[in-house]
Each structure stands twice: as C-alpha cells, then as structure tokens.
C-alpha cells in the first residue's frame, strides 16, 4: 500500500487499465459518479417495470392480472426502488461528477469512503429485491412500513437491514459531500460564489445526515417489535402505532426535500445557461434553499392529519406547511425572472428545465391543497396524493435529473448526444407524463383510494387514460436509454470544452471529456469565470 501511495500525485492522466481495478477499487469521483448514475438508471427501469404492473392491473376494473398481495408488493417495491434506488443515487452521482469540477477540487474529500458509499448500494438492493422470491413474499405494507401491518410480513428483517445499509451509504455519501464542499474549494471560490447546484447539495447533505439515522431508529424499533418482543408500537404494552408515523415522517419530510433540492440546483444551472443571463437573485436562491431545509423539520405531521392528532398539532403543522410555499415561490419566481428578457434557446436540457418549472409548480399547488387540514381529510390516501407526489417526483426530480444528464453528458463523454432524439424523448415524456398523472387528480377528488388493485367502475375511464399514458411514458424512457448509450459509445460529434454557448463556471474550463484527473493543483479562480462571480444583490 505504502509504495502505491507515494507516487500518487504524479501518475495517470488516463484511466487505469484493469476493469476490476478501475471500477471496483476506484477512488475517482468521475468513475464513482458514473457507477452511481448507471446504478440509478438500472433501478429506474426496475422500479418502472413495477409501475407498469400496477398500471396494467388498473387498466380496467376487476382483478385481472395479478393477485392483490403481489399488487401490494409492487406498490411497495416501486416506491422503495424509485426513492432509494433511482432518485437519490442519481443525485449523488451527479454530485460526485460535478461538485469537484464546479469548485476546483481534485476529487471528493474522502475518496475511498466514496467508493464504499456506492458499493453498499447494489448489495442493499439485492437484499431488498430478493424478498420478492422468498416463500413469504416481499414487503407489501407500503414503503412507509406502518405498523402493525408491516409487522405481519416475514420479509421485514430483510427490508429493515437493506434500509440500514442504504442509510449508512447515504450518511457516508453526505459526509463526503459536506467535507468536499467545505474543505476542498479552490482559492477564490467563496461560499457565496459557488454554483447553486453545489449549495443545494451542501444543504441536502446536511438533511441526509440529520434524518437518515432517524429512519434507522424507526425501522430498528419495527425490527425489535416484531422479533424481540418490544412494545413501541403496541398499545397493550403502552406504545402507539402513531409513534412510528411521527418518527418515520420526521425522516420522511426532509427526505422529500432531499429528493427535490438538488433538482432545484440543477435547474438553477440550466436556466441561466440557456437564457444567457446570470441567475436572478443568487443569494435569494441560496437562502430559499436553506429556508426550505429548515422548514422541512417542522412539518412532518402533515402526512398524518387523518390519524387523529390533537387539534393544536393539526393547526401548527398546517400553517408551517403552507409557509414552505414562500421560499419555493421565491425560487420559481427567480427562475422565471432569469428567463425574462434572456436570449433563450431550447435545447433538450432547457426543455426539461422549463417543463420542470411548470409541472413542479402544479405539484406544489396540489401540495398546498393537501396542506389544508379540512381538505386533506377528503384527499388523504386517495389518488390525489398519488398525483401530487408524482408531479413533484417525476416531473420534478426525475425531469431535473434527465435535464441535468443531457446538460452534462457531453462533458462526461466528450461527444454531443443526438439533439433530435433528445427532443423526441422530451416531447414524448412531457405529453405522456401528463396523460399518466393528470387524470389521477380527478380520480382522487372523486374518492378513488390508493394502493388498491380494484376499483369502482365509475373510475374506469380515467384509469384507462392514465394507464395508456403510463405505458407510453415508460416506453419513452427507452428513447432516453438509447440516446445515452449512443452518446457514450457511438456518437461521433465532438463536444467543445464549453459545451453550451452561455455556460459559465469551472466545469466548462476543463476539456470534454473531463480527464480522469482534473485540478491536480488548485486552480486560481477568477470571478469572471464563475457563474456567480459578481454577487451584487
């Protein structure tokens, strides 16, 4: 080991040769970022196939295709895979790739821990997905795992341990990102000159470290209640099932922002580039993210209005929740103001960013409706909720990830992706995602409950429309896969260092593709190179 360590700084500008050495023993933020992104894309398709099963069963009323228990496994697994396997690793992958490039660091602060953070994930998901093939079946009580229902599942231990592993992975990843941002910035890269994406990840990482251990505590209590005879969630022993919901949602609500703040960051990079204007109100954007993160800790019980909370709690959590609309509104306003008067072009990343702003805002508004206690009594556990969180997670988080992928793909591969097929992917996605989820608002308002494999014939038409949208949206993602694979392996058109005309920031000063090692000595950062070099507001 020691002899390897000593010649570290002099060697390879190119990637090391051995496949195992390069991808499994890596200490390189770009390779680990790529691993994260590939893993995330794989999980996106696995979780997506579960969603296809759900939509196929709901295509028309009646129990046609699958058994109810299997349907419940699908809803549970779809959520767990998409949240912990697709969205979160995608953001960590983008952060891994871009944060060191954006702040002028040679790599992440703790590169070996970075590798461990990634390699825990395939094992954790193998553990979790293996439960689908166990004699007792997989978890089927919903991804929130509320007791007492979740305690009936024989696969609980597997899922709890898988979540422990994912938590360890997330905490280490977050520690790494904080240490990188606070400790590895190049001289001249002041905190308030960092790209908004870096800021969003700094705050997200704080949220991760603060709440992943709380989730670990919650699921540990489930484990001991089932296997070791504790009574945390058993009223006969003095406990309360609602206690689980409190602890879970104390994690769960910040988790929601863990899945959207980095998306805000990505959009804040894309919009100024294609509007060819600096972002409007840089500081307000940063403070808004911090404000949203703070509020996320005091709104958790809005997920539980229907369990019978004391009235004072209902009112507090209702008002605290509605407060979040203020900083979120600041962000949406600033993105629009950034575009105002800009000389805009609409390449694929910008199309995704614009769609994000519009559709995420729709999801935000339905969230405001759900925040109202009396209205929530009506909407709770209906398809309205399903429509709401898919607008913020699919057209929010996933669209931002796709936009970010198109935005940075030429930097990663050194080749331009196919713009025509990128646009086809965008237009298919944006049309079909609305066909898929918009009718679900109406279904929910009409009273269709979520997580049920059968429904009243009155809901048949909208469900059929939604399912058709779902299949086509799913199929559209194959175009995405095609564009990415083509760009990575077959594209001919070389990408310039500054891929996009209006792009500013350190990541565009390094060659495309970014060499295996960048910034081996700290670059001297000049304000005019930065997207936010002149902060004057």
């Amino acid at each position, binding site marked *: 080991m020691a002899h390897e360590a000593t010649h570290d700084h002099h060697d390879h500008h190119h990637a090391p040769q051995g496949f195992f050495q390069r991808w499994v023993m890596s200490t390189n933020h770009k390779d680990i970022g790529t691993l994260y992104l590939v893993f995330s894309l794989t999980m996106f398709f696995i979780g997506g196939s579960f969603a296809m099963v759900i939509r196929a069963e709901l295509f028309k009323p009646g129990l046609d295709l699958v058994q109810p228990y299997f349907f419940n496994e699908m809803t549970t697994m779809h959520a767990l895979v998409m949240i912990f396997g697709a969205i979160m690793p995608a953001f960590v992958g983008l952060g891994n790739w871009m944060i060191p490039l954006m702040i002028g660091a040679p790599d992440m602060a703790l590169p070996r821990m970075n590798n461990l953070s990634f390699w825990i994930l395939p094992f954790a998901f193998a553990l979790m997905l293996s439960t689908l093939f166990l004699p007792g079946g997989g978890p089927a009580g919903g991804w929130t795992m509320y007791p007492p229902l979740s305690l009936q599942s024989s696969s609980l231990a597997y899922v709890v341990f898988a979540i422990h592993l994912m938590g360890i992975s997330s905490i280490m990843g977050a520690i790494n990102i904080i240490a990188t941002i606070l400790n590895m910035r190049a001289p001249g890269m002041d905190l308030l000159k960092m790209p908004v994406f870096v800021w969003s990840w700094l705050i997200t990482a704080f949220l991760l*470290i603060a709440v992943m251990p709380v989730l670990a505590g919650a699921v540990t209590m489930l484990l001991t209640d089932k296997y070791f005879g504790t009574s945390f969630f058993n009223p006969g022993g003095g406990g309360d099932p609602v206690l689980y919901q409190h602890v879970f949602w104390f994690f769960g609500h910040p988790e929601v922002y863990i899945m959207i703040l980095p998306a805000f960051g990505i959009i804040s990079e894309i919009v100024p580039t294609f509007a060819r204007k600096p972002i409007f109100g840089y500081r307000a954007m940063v403070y808004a993210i911090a404000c949203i993160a703070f509020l996320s800790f005091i709104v958790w019980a809005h997920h539980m209005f229907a369990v019978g909370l004391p009235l004072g709690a209902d009112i507090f959590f209702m008002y605290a929740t509605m407060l979040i609309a203020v900083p979120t509104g600041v962000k949406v306003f600033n993105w629009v103001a950034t575009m105002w008067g800009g000389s805009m072009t609409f390449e694929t990343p910008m199309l995704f960013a614009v769609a994000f702003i519009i559709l995420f805002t729709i999801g935000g508004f339905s969230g405001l409706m759900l925040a109202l206690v009396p209205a929530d009594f009506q909407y709770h556990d209906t398809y309205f909720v399903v429509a709401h969180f898919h607008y913020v997670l699919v057209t929010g988080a996933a669209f931002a990830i796709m936009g970010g992928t198109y935005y940075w793909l030429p930097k990663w591969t050194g080749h331009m992706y196919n713009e025509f097929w990128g646009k086809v992917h965008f237009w298919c996605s944006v049309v079909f995602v609305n066909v898929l989820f918009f009718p679900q608002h109406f279904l929910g308002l009409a009273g269709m409950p979520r997580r049920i494999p059968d429904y009243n014939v009155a809901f048949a038409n909208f469900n059929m429309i939604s399912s058709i949208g779902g299949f086509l949206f799913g199929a559209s993602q194959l175009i995405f896969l095609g564009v990415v694979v083509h760009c990575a392996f077959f594209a001919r058109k070389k990408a310039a260092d500054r891929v996009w005309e209006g792009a500013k920031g350190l990541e565009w000063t390094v060659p495309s593709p970014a060499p295996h090692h960048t910034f081996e000595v700290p670059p001297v950062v000049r304000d005019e190179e930065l997207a936010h070099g002149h902060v004057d507001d």
Partner: protein
Amino acid sequence: MSQQHDVYYVPSKSQWPIVAAVVMFLTVFGAAHWLNAEPGDTGFGKTVIAIGAVGVLGMFFGWFRSVIKESLAGNYNHQVDTSFRMGMMWFIFSEVMFFGAFFGALFYIRNFSVPWLGGEGHGVLTHQYLYEAYSGSWGVAGGNGPLHVGGAFSVVQPWGLPLLNTLILLTSSVTVTIAHHALRAGHRGRILLFLGLTVLLGATFLYCQAHEYMEAYKELNLTLHSGVYGSTFFMLTGFHGLHVTLGTIMLAVIWCRVLKGHFNKEHHFGFEAVAWYWHFVDVVWLGLFLFVYIL
C-alpha cells in the same frame, strides 16, 4: 505530513471498500435469515453472521492499517487532516440523531401515548372502552401498558449502580482529557497511564452495566418484554452500551498506537477523534441517567 500545500492529495486505489460492502452484506443477510429461521433450522444464518462479523473486524483492521501506514509515511497534508476531522464530526452528529430517534420515542411514550391510554386528552374513549382499569402512569404501576405486557416488574434504582456508572464515565472523560494534554506536552508515560485508566474505566462501566442487566432480568423481572418501559430502557441503555463497547475498543487501539509511537504533539488526529467519540458517549449517558433512570 510534510506535504506542500499547493498539491492536492488523492489516495490510491483500495480493495477495502468492496471488502467492507461484502462483509456488511453477509452480516445483515445472515442476521435476516437467522431472525426468520424456522424450528429445526440448520443454523445457516448464524454461520453467515459469524463469517460476516469476523469479516467486518478484519476489514476494519486492514483498512485502518493501510490508513495508518499512509499517515506515518507522511502522505496526509493539512487538507486531508481537515477532511478527516469534518468526517468524524458529522459522523458523531449522525449518531446524535440516531439517539435522538430513541429519546424522541421515549418522550412521546411518556408524554402522550401512556397518558392517552390512561384517558387523558383525546384518549378518553379508548380508555373507557378498552382499558378502563389502566392508570396511565409510568414506572412500576403502568410502564408496561394496560395489558401489563411481561408481567409485574421493578425498576432499577438510579442512586445505586447507575450513579456509580455516571461517576465512572465522568471520571473517564477527565482522564482522557488529561491524556490529551499529556500528548500535547509530549509526556508519553502520562499519556499511557491516563489513557489506560480511561480504557479500564470504560471496561468497568460495561461490567457494571452487564451486572445491572443480569439483576434486572433475574431479580426485577425487568426485561425487553416489559411493555414500553422495558423497551425504552433496554433499547436506550443497550445502544449506549454498544457505543461504549466500541469506544473502549477504539481507546484500546489508540493506547497501542501511543505505545508504538504513532502520535506526536502536532499530529494525533486518531487520538482526538476517539476522544470526541468518548465525550459524545459520555454526554448521551448523562441524558440517559436523567431521563431513563431518574425521571
């Protein structure tokens, strides 16, 4: 350590992360299998846990060995040192939040769920229909809930062994600080003495804790099954005990490293990280002593 500051340091490739991922997976896979074992099981789960656990120990040994070697070779500059410090600080913060979940559960149970089952607040009807005889008080009278899960029990009195344990941990925090000052002053003998004392105090704490558990199980009938009282008592003190165990092992490792002369006045982050961890464990205990034993 003599690294110039204008060059970044990126560590070499390492096999330890993938080894760590594999052994962690084996441990939890074995544990899950063991928990679901049917009667007449072959013991497959236990075997896998054992392999995984030995693997975890070996992995920590190997990984830290390589890091120590690199540190002694002078590869780590000031920036790496700062990254390590931040890593440890945020790790401890995550541990704080982990204990926070269990303390939060304790507060919720004591302030809401138990009184509500006793008919307070909006628990009136539940109380009336289901648990009319239940008083909703904590401790011996109602700590195991309206169904008296686990049967009648007595509680551990705070002013005996727990008070002694409090004094032991507080003293150990003082001794580890004296050792730290000795390290900065370069008195190796004094470091070894006081760090050794800290390890012994940690081990004594664990001995007392084990004694207390045995007494609770055998004489007080206070077990993990004793309703929420037993659940919160053993989960909080148990996880704390695990952390003391880990901390004691880490202190012992640091003692060996001092003996081998790995540290000097300026560079002893390994020592400091373990000292921080020890203080954290100490503070958690104070919370436990107050909220679990006294109140």
